[in-house]
């Protein structure tokens, strides 16, 4: 289950962060997303560590802990997508696929002429679309 999805701007500022948990604990997810930027930064700043994935937007698993996983995705404009999931056996391919669709949704949202680049994404349609994607992510054939 995806518990949190975030879009982080190229200056590491949150552009969109949405938690999908029942509990009122979004702040800890903010923290997780924020701290995972460390890993993104590290990968970006040390390209030799990222190895063959250098040309790929999908950063893979950033942040494995015992109970949740953080995946990252870096667009060409240095906008980061961060996904936090409590699913411990997620296939990378699924996540990658999810990110691609999310990327498409993001692009649609920011190409809205009323969106100010670099500002928070407030589009309701984007939020709905993301919410649908998150719900369907759980239903997709798991590994």
């Amino acid at each position, binding site marked *: 289950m995806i518990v949190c999805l975030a879009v982080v701007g190229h*200056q*590491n*500022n*949150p552009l969109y962060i949405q938690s999908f948990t*029942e*509990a*009122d*604990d*979004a*702040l*800890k*997810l*903010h*923290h*997780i997303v*924020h*701290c995972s*930027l*460390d*890993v993104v*930064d*590290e990968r970006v*700043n*040390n390209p030799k*560590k990222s*190895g*063959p*994935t250098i040309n790929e937007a999908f950063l893979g*698993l950033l942040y*494995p*802990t*015992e*109970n*949740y996983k953080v995946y990252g995705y870096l667009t060409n404009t240095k906008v980061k997508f961060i996904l936090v999931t*409590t699913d411990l*056996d997620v*296939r*990378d*391919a699924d996540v990658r696929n999810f990110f691609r669709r999310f990327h498409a949704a993001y692009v649609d949202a920011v190409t809205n002429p009323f969106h100010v680049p*670099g*500002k*928070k994404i407030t589009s309701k349609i984007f939020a709905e679309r993301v919410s649908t994607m998150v719900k369907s992510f759980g239903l997709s054939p798991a*590994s």
Partner: protein
Amino acid sequence: MVKKGFEERLPFKRAFLNNKTRNPVLVEELPAEFILTTDARLRSRFPQEQSLFWFREPYATIVLVTCEDLDEFKNILKPRLKLIVQNDEREWFIVFVSKAPAHNDQATKMAKKVYAKLEVDFSSKKRERCCKLDINAPEANFWDDLETKIMECIRNTLDRRIQFYEEEIRKLSEQRFMPVWNFCNFFHPEEVKRYGWYIPLYYAAANLMVEESLAFMFEIAHLHEDALREYDELELCYLETGAQRVCQYGWKAREFGGVEQGDDQATLLEPARKPLTQIVHDDSFREFEFGSIYLPSMLPFCMREVWVITACLALIDATASHYKDGLAAPDVEKEFYRVQGEIYTLCRTKFMRLGYLIGYGSDIERSPVNSASLSMLPWPKPAVWPSLPSNASSEVLAKEKMILQDSPRHKHFGIQRKPLPLEPSVLLREANRRRASLSAGNMSELFDGRPNANDSSGPLSPLPKVNSVSMSRTFSSPGNFEGSIDRPMRLAEIYVAAEHALRNTISDVKLWESLSSIEKFEQKYLDLSKGAANNYHRSWWKRHGVVLDGEIAAVYHKHENYDFAANLYEKVCALYAGEGWENLLAEVLPNLAECQKIQNDQAGYLSSCVRLLSLDKGLFLTKERQAFQSEVVRLAHSEMEHPVPLDVSSLITFSGNQGPLLELCDGDPGTLSVTLWSEFPDDITLESLSLTLTATNNTDEGAKAIKSTEAIVLRPGRNIITLPLPPQKPGSYVLGVLTGQIGQLRFRSHSFSKGGPADSDDFLSYEKPTRPILKVANPRSLVDLAAAVSSALLMNESQWVGIIVRPLNYSLKGAVLHIDAGPGLRIEERHHFEIEKHEVGTQNMTNLDNPPENLSPVSTGVKQLTLEDGKIKLPDWTSNITSVLWIPLRAVSDGLAKGTPAGFKCLRLLRRTIAVHFTDPFHVSIRVADKCNDGTLLLQVKASLAIYDAWLDLQDGFAHAGKGDGRPASSFFPLIVSPKSKAGILFSIYLAEASAKVRFSLFVLYESVFVERQAGLKFVFPIHLTSADEAKELQPVSILNIKYTISGSRNLGAHTPVAEELTGPDNVKAEHLTFRSELVLQRPVLDPCLAVGFLSLPSSGLRVGQLVTMKWRVERLKALEEKVASDNLDEVLYEVNINPENWMIAGRKRGYVSLSTKQGMRFEDRDLNIMPASGCRICPPPQLGLPNVDEANISCNPPGPHLVCVLPPPLSSSYCVPA
């Protein structure tokens, strides 16, 4: 006995072993152990494991043989030995133990023989694999020999194993670096199915194990440096594969191994102490059966947590102490610290979990980081939750007391937040559910049906969602289920039970101690946090470090160490603020503010309050934001020791108003209207306010501030304020900075809003306003003053002079007109001035023949004004329209007026001189010449004239013919002369001396004028005066008198004089104006003797200051008669007549020229140089007069007075005469 002797020599001293790079390394001490082949630890394991756990295999096999018979050796021992040696890949050698007593030669001999045979069979030239131990007579060098052999074996084994492991690592690494590799999909799903769920786990462990075992092997061999290096690589490996996961699996794997006392301590790297090494030595990894993973029930309570803590601590200690020098490359070092930080964090998390279980949860800050690490971490899952020991009632009481005493810490500013959870679920429920005696079904009963569920919720209200589990977590009413076995445990009981269980689990004294009291717990918690933070700070993961600093700060904060706390909090706030994570910032900033307040750091506190106010409105309640503001205001009005400037860019933003920008003319003041957005939750009073204006075209010049001195109260949201704007220089201006004062404090705001409230995430862009708010035009004419009349006015009559006042896109409100009549002009102050709207059409009046009759001076739309002190205040209605101001004016002098300089003042001064041309109604230019040439009298005004009378007062020597009064027949009058016509009046005169009378007649000539616009009235004198008269005395000139009236539009020029005149004493006369003009009637040259000719001037014209030579020619027309005086007959007196205002003479002015008396003699004077004196004008040239000769005898050429034009001096100021 062999074992005994062997162990006596342990550990081996000064062993040389090879490290990974095949270099011999001296090992001071090498421990070894002598075990039997029947030792349980050598029992066989799964083949695939075998290689992996090779490091636990013996390093050398010593085969102890004894044989006293050659046959026995041949038949039994030798084949068995061969078998052992061939099947065993291990290093081996044979110790032949001779049991033969020393005194028994036979036996000794036999033994020697057998040994010799043995040596032949098993030793080679390269390698001696045999040695002999004589029990009864030990050789002195046997043990040395043995040691050497063992060493050799160990060295060889080590080399081989290193090789193997390196190969293995290489293979695994290759796989790991494949792009999509991870543990989960490392193997084909089919394979996973086949081998079951444990395979990935196994390989995860395997991967770890391979590297770890290499390190461990070195460690066993006491190649510490190499071991350390291997462990470092191991850590790198954690990173690349997901450190925690590997750690988790790796450690989980080992966790199942130990159940003995002390096996919970994962002292990975302490060879002196038992645990992992011992587990390995004990070969307890054999129990690493994958099936046993799901048999955790066997484990002590929280075994896993405790094991991880100890493992982490051990790893940290061991690596940190070896890594002080920083031998590695910088990036490796960063990795090292990162892993250290990770291990600390892991340890910290588990430690917090243990602390929570025994009731220290209230001491753990419910921060995002702690919540993130604990609330998603499941509770330990023992099969049966530990139950309360029987004799623990006092401890339970103590815990309950602790729970009750602990009051939740209130945040500053009265901020109330739902605390973040530290628990994955309610501990009370989880613990009770796992108790053997309670089923899950009981739980619902437990929570429902308790009426006082909500009233005693303790500090650990973990679930923010208070749905069905809104219950008392402490169950501090012990009476209810007392005595019942099934009674659910109260929270205090759970804590005590966990504490007891942990006491059994934890063998590490230090760890247990740090859990023994809340103070110790806090200390350890702080140490771990610091350790993690410090290591993260040295790694790439700065955010992790800073966030943990915040946790350290929280501890300091609680212990009232506000200085440290504030410093650390500031770092955290800077991190969050710098990247715009406002939600997280809102969690920390109030704490910082509180520390600053207590420390009396007013500046810091103030800035924190302002920052709190600037955060997104949704993050705080209005009440809280009001608290922030009241603190700001309170501080601002208090006597701060060091007043600080306040940056309120995020709170007060400003912009120009919508709509067109304010346009001002150069030098005009104005009022600037500005929109201010206040983000303060309440009204706020600004004691003063000023805004800078920055010129867009001129960046050099500093911005100018415009100020409002009055206090301004800003309401929340949009405010429109107006500021007086002093005159600005030309240019366009944008808003710069807003400054002002709140109380004693100066504030600044740089933030320009685009007509809306500032975006909360505007921290990134300080967009400069681009739209100008003010435009000051370059200096230009604001008003145009022009003469309304296009044609001349009447001299000596009171005339309306019109001034057209035309505002040029500029309001003339409050304008004052200063009028200063020029010399020779007099303003008729007795009369009112008049002002009226200027009609453009009047300018183009086509029908001049019919000028508006009876044009009343005060017509509709005409207002009368009074001159006061030479000033006229223009009425407001004229401020935006073109108007005409009529000034009654009289030119009093006979000369021509130059004009009226009229100053126009509208706050600023515009000076304009308006030239108004006054003139006589007629200009008489008459020339009397032979044969009836014209004398011309021009009508100089554009008006219709009605001539009522005209007469000629003749000069002496002339007389009127006919009736004698010089008037033409009166039946001609009134004679209307329209501007388009010419008229002539003929007078009949004769020379008085002559008897012959010349008849004259008067006629009026009408003639259309097409070419000339101005109409001319021509008086033509077709008179040829044939008689001459010398009478020069008495009246020298003739005067033409004309009585006339004029009817003209004042818009055009001459008109009826100002009405006042008409009310003069004799009305009838006053109606008629009189024009008098001199006429000089020249008597004809009857007897020309001399002719004076004026030679033409240089064609280039005359200039002021330029010397020119004038030439005249004097010619004698006829010979002098005899009656003329004999003297000086041939000389003629001359005199040059000049007007000294116009001319300067260099040379003789008067003198004689010699001229022969004969006819036709000529004389040309070359000597007279004249110079035009000054000014540009048209003036008569010098005249050459001949005083001694009668005028009647001089014929002039040109005959009449004429004019020359003098040009202004050249631009050069030089007056030098050209060479």
